[in-house]
């Protein structure tokens, strides 16, 4: 899976979770193109959204992330790095 595909996966999942930030199409597009990073705290994810994001990542990439660890990862770009490294 390429970085772009990982970004797509994350964006789709966040969109499904109806997160307000992801309704900003320009912001989402910038993240997908790697031009903009987004702090996970900025997303205001509830525990359900965190769980669903971790499930989606695990099932499509095989990389397990504990939902409680998400905030310590910091940003979506860092999350992409974690997933990429986990897949290697």
């Amino acid at each position, binding site marked *: 899976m390429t970085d772009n595909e990982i970004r797509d996966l994350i964006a789709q999942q966040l969109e*499904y979770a109806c997160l307000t930030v992801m309704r900003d199409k320009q912001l989402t597009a910038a993240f997908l193109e790697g031009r903009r990073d987004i702090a996970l705290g900025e997303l205001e994810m509830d525990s359900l959204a965190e769980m669903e994001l971790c499930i989606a990542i695990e099932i*499509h990439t095989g990389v397990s992330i504990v939902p409680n660890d998400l905030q310590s990862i910091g940003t979506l770009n860092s999350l992409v790095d974690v997933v990429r490294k986990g897949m290697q």
Partner: protein
Amino acid sequence: MQLSPGFFERLSQHADRRPQHAAVVTASVTLTYGDLLRRVQAGLEYFRRQGIVPGTVVGLTLDDEVDHLVATLSLMAAGAGQITLATHDTPMLRARLAQRVHLSHVVAASDAFRVAGTAFIQLPRQEVASSTLAAEVPAEPGSTLFLKTSGTTGDMNIVAFREEQIAAQSHRHDDYAGERLLRLASIEHNNSKRHRLYCVWAGGTNVFRPREATDIVDFSLRHAVSCLDISRMHASDLAASHNARELAGVKLRTGGSEVPFDVRRCIQDQVTQNLYVRYAATECGGIAMARPGEHDAEATVGRLLDEVELQIVDADDKTLPPGSVGEIRLRAPGMATEYFDSPDESARRFRHNWFYPGDVGYLRADGQLVVQGRKDDMIILNGLNICPAEIERVLESHPAVSVAAALSLPSRIHGQIPVAAVELHPNAVVTVSELQQHARQHLALRSPRRIIIMARLPRNSQGKIMRRELRPCFQPSKSET
């Protein structure tokens, strides 16, 4: 308790009362009950000459269904035990089964089916068919029928039924008396073998289809089949065939796996209103049957058959009221009380005089049973219980989906993650994300987190979907459609 007569005695009664009534019908031959009795007597004599005595355990490797039925009844009359070593099984599996039941002889049409360490008996069809001598049979039925059933712990379980247990199960199928029964699954499959015996017990007519006869409709009409028993897969295929409506007068029976309401509706619209969906287990025979007029959106398997006692219980074995989902346990005449040579599995499934088939479901206030799936298949996602059947029902309600199979993927963090594979109707077009949206809409948190579309789901020889074989398809490296 008074013992039922054996099958030989029952066969003799039918031959005495209705000697000209058709017992067996094939594309080319009709055997009356008189003919069948003579063949079974001849088989009995032949097997005795080969050294078969009461207590001997014999393996049957006969794909000719009439030969198989005659040999089965002859061995019962001889008081011998028997197990099917099917021609479609691997030599390794046949050898393993032979070893487990301490087989002494194998009866087959060809010596290609010899099993090391056992005596081989080639079935001489002409000799069996021509003998007409009357033979003495044991005063009390004492034969054993070994039936294999898929285990949940890797190896298959074997149930050893005494002849009178099969007879007791047969009483739940007395309606076969007036039927001409065609089953598409070969008699080499245990479920088919048992129903063929139930039909003999009832005095009905067993119709056998030659393997090369591909048009079920034409064959059924030609041989006046009144009851057609087929797998869910074959029933769906039948509904799609151009001449299916010509079977409008036939009773169509299916089961073995969950039959969703839309599939039932399709069969009733395209083939016959006389649709019966059964719930059964190898360990006890028939349990419940949904009859015409009883099919609804909950995909009920109908009311319990005569003399079947069934309860829904919680994890502490406490009985639950109607409508509550729990584990099914039951007892019925002719039920097994243990597995042969599997004490651990016996202790798990047979407890306090009940059999626990490992299914979950609920009894409705109107007495109808709804089976939701295997307890072992229950998906537990972060503590949330999800029945694969509910996922499958929702996916199959999408107009593009023909069949769905839901399963779980193990997760260190979440326990189990539900996923699903689907097969589409011919020429149907749909994307994975459309299916995911449909599932989320109806199932929310219970929806499968990944869906794949496959040209054909893996099935066993009886058409049952093999979920375990689907798991590798969900490896993260696999790309989605």
